């Protein structure tokens, strides 16, 4: 059972209440302190911690205020007076000053010394970007120079194990703060540089976790700076937090904001490397496939519709043309032959129709006929004549004068063969001739 009057806040309600209260109560305060952890966000807002030996407070100066501020560029270690409103950052419930102005109050002791050192090394060329060694693409082994018990070594090992299982890490244990720390760190760096070939490391992480400027001081000391400068192995510095800077950070080949970041930098290279290899491998396969495909397709048209594939078809066309020629040849020639035969047949038939034998027979009959007629006519004529002669002959036979003698008459003729019809014409002794039916006799007239 809860008392009715007990007020229970939600966290946000309380932080909001606190914020309003503080802003009303401390609307304008001026605070003196040393700036540290200065971060200028990309938004243009400035964040830092204002501190002195015994206390610290977060400060946020928004972009508009910064532009109007007396001091516009702030560096760690600067002694400044910040003017502003006290407030609460509700999300974290953190006390902070929302600064409206700031001015320089004189440089702090630590930073003055540090700045001096930095200046000296800069002049010696220790920070020359030209001499910064590139990190190995992929370290085979990583050397770490740090405290074996600190947060740094834990963070580094954790991250490396997670991101690059089983990567070889060799830790050189060194004290990282207090007297002699710088020497141990330097010895670690030198140790790795002095390792025989094949047993060394490819990259060094040198650093420690966060702490005060005093805690980090070893990394500003000459032995460490010189050792880093000497190192043939690329060195990543990883000291404190992102806002902390040491000389080691400037001389190192690469500065990591934190030890974790250093581990990430190293491992990130592996990811990049693997990705690169995969990319290249895929590119290789893709390109090879493309090459094969291109070659294949360069052959493709030759399989399908090209003149090469059409060649057997051309043979068929020629065969057809040839067949056509042959058929035409046969047809035309046989037709011609048939025609010739027909012509021959017609002529031969007409010729055969001509009956020479008949003609000969006709002529024969004609001749025969004429011959018969000639014979008949001639016969007729002969018979006629014979008849006529016969008639005349028999008539003549009847008229023969000698027929009288047969009756007993006789015929007397004189010398001159004249018939004697008158006896007075006779003279005596005249010789006469007397003819009888049979024979004749000569006689002499005796008397008149």
């Amino acid at each position: 059972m809860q008392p009715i009057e007990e007020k229970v806040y939600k966290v946000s309600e309380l932080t909001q209440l606190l914020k309003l209260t503080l802003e009303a109560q401390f609307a304008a305060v001026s605070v003196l302190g040393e700036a540290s952890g200065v971060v200028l966000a990309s938004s243009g807002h400035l964040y830092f911690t204002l501190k002195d030996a015994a206390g610290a407070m977060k400060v946020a100066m928004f972009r508009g205020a910064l532009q109007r501020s007396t001091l516009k560029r702030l560096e760690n270690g600067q002694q400044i007076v910040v003017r502003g409103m006290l407030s609460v950052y509700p999300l974290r419930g953190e006390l902070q000053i929302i600064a409206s102005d700031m001015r320089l109050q004189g440089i702090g002791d630590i930073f003055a010394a540090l700045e001096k050192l930095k200046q000296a090394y800069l002049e010696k060329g220790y920070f020359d970007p030209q001499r910064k060694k590139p990190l190995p693409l992929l370290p085979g082994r990583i050397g770490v120079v740090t405290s074996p018990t600190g947060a740094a070594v834990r963070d580094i090992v954790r991250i490396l194990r997670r991101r690059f299982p089983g990567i070889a890490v060799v830790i050189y244990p060194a004290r990282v703060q207090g007297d002699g720390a710088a020497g141990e760190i330097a010895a670690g760096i030198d140790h790795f540089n002095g390792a025989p070939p094949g047993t060394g490391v490819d990259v060094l992480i040198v650093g420690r976790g966060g702490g005060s400027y005093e805690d980090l001081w070893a990394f500003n000391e000459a032995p460490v700076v010189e050792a880093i400068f000497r190192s043939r192995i690329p060195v990543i510095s990883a000291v404190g937090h992102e806002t902390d800077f040491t000389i080691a950070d400037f001389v190192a080949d690469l500065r990591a904001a934190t030890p974790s970041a250093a581990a990430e930098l190293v491992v990130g290279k592996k990811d990049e490397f693997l990705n690169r290899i995969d990319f290249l491998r895929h590119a290789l396969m893709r390109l090879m496939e493309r090459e094969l495909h291109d070659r294949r397709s360069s052959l493709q048209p030759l399989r399908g519709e090209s003149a090469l594939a059409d060649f057997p078809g051309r043979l068929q066309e020629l065969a057809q043309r040839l067949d056509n020629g042959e058929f035409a040849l046969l047809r035309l020639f046989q037709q011609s032959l048939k025609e010739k035969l027909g012509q021959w047949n017609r002529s031969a038939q007409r010729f055969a129709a001509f009956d020479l034998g008949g003609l000969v027979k006709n002529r024969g009959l004609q001749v025969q006929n004429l011959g018969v007629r000639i014979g008949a006519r001639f016969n007729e004529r002969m018979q006629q004549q014979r008849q006529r002669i016969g008639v005349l002959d028999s008539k003549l036979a009847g008229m023969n004068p000698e027929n009288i003698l047969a009756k007993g008459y006789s015929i007397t003729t004189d010398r001159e063969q004249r018939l004697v019809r008158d006896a007075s014409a006779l003279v005596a002794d005249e010789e006469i001739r007397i003819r009888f039916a049979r024979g004749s006799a000569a006689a002499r007239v005796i008397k008149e």
Partner: protein
Amino acid sequence: MKKETLDFETALKKLEAIVAKLENPDVPLQEGFALYEEGMTLTAQMKKELNDIEKKVKILQKDAKGGLQETDFEPEENG
């Protein structure tokens, strides 16, 4: 009797004339004899001529038959 080579037709006419003369009873005997005689001669002559021709015809026919028997033309065969 002289052999006159009268042609058949002339001879025939002469004979006919002789016969005509002889048919006249007034023909003197003497002349009658002569005519008769002439007629007989003519007759004989003409008969001879006819017979001669007849003989020749027979020879011709014989020749023709002989020649024809081999190659005689027989119109019946054609019919």
